[in-house]
């Protein structure tokens, strides 16, 4: 029982290190899209690991912790996707070393297609 609690505490520590790395990435990445990637992915993994570690430390709380884990898994990618789409629509500038922008190409392709139809 005690070793299980110890393992859970170490998993929570790993999750907090992932959260810290996520916010360091938020400070160091060059443009908004890279910051969205670094921040959201690392913080999702960090939060899930923290809750899973607490689940091992405190097995009696499994219900609410499970609801929290599922809520984080569902809501966090959705918010990052909506934010990335909005920032592309309002033309937040990309960094200078960007090579491909597939979303821009697809919008131009669709606009070209509609022009040909009319």
């Amino acid at each position: 029982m005690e070793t299980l609690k110890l393992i859970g505490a170490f998993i929570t520590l790993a999750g907090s290190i992932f959260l810290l790395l996520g916010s360091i990435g938020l400070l160091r990445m060059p443009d908004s899209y890279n910051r969205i990637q670094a921040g959201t992915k690392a913080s999702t993994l960090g939060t899930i690991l923290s809750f899973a570690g607490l689940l091992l430390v405190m097995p009696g709380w499994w219900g609410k912790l499970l609801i929290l884990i599922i809520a984080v898994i569902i809501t966090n990618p959705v918010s990052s996707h909506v934010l990335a789409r909005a920032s592309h629509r309002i033309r937040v500038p990309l960094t200078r070393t960007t090579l491909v922008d597939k979303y821009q190409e697809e919008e131009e392709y669709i606009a070209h297609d509609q022009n040909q139809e009319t």
Partner: protein
Amino acid sequence: MVNTILITALGFMMLSVVLSIVRFMKGPSYTDRVIAFDVMTIASLAIIAVIAYLSGRIIYLDIAMVYGILSFLGVLVVARYLEKGL
């Protein structure tokens, strides 16, 4: 031993909140500020859960749940507003 490790983890999480507050103040565009707010609230969820263990009260997890839902709705509303879809 378990409490010591969890308090260390709490320190790392609070450092992560502080670093995202720095990005929140610097951020050149709106998107940077919103994503810094998102990371800040997600780290706060983990902080609330660890504090719930350290003080031994399960009721704090309900607060974490409501906080997570509110931060999700806040990010969604701001993103739709920037997109001029609201």
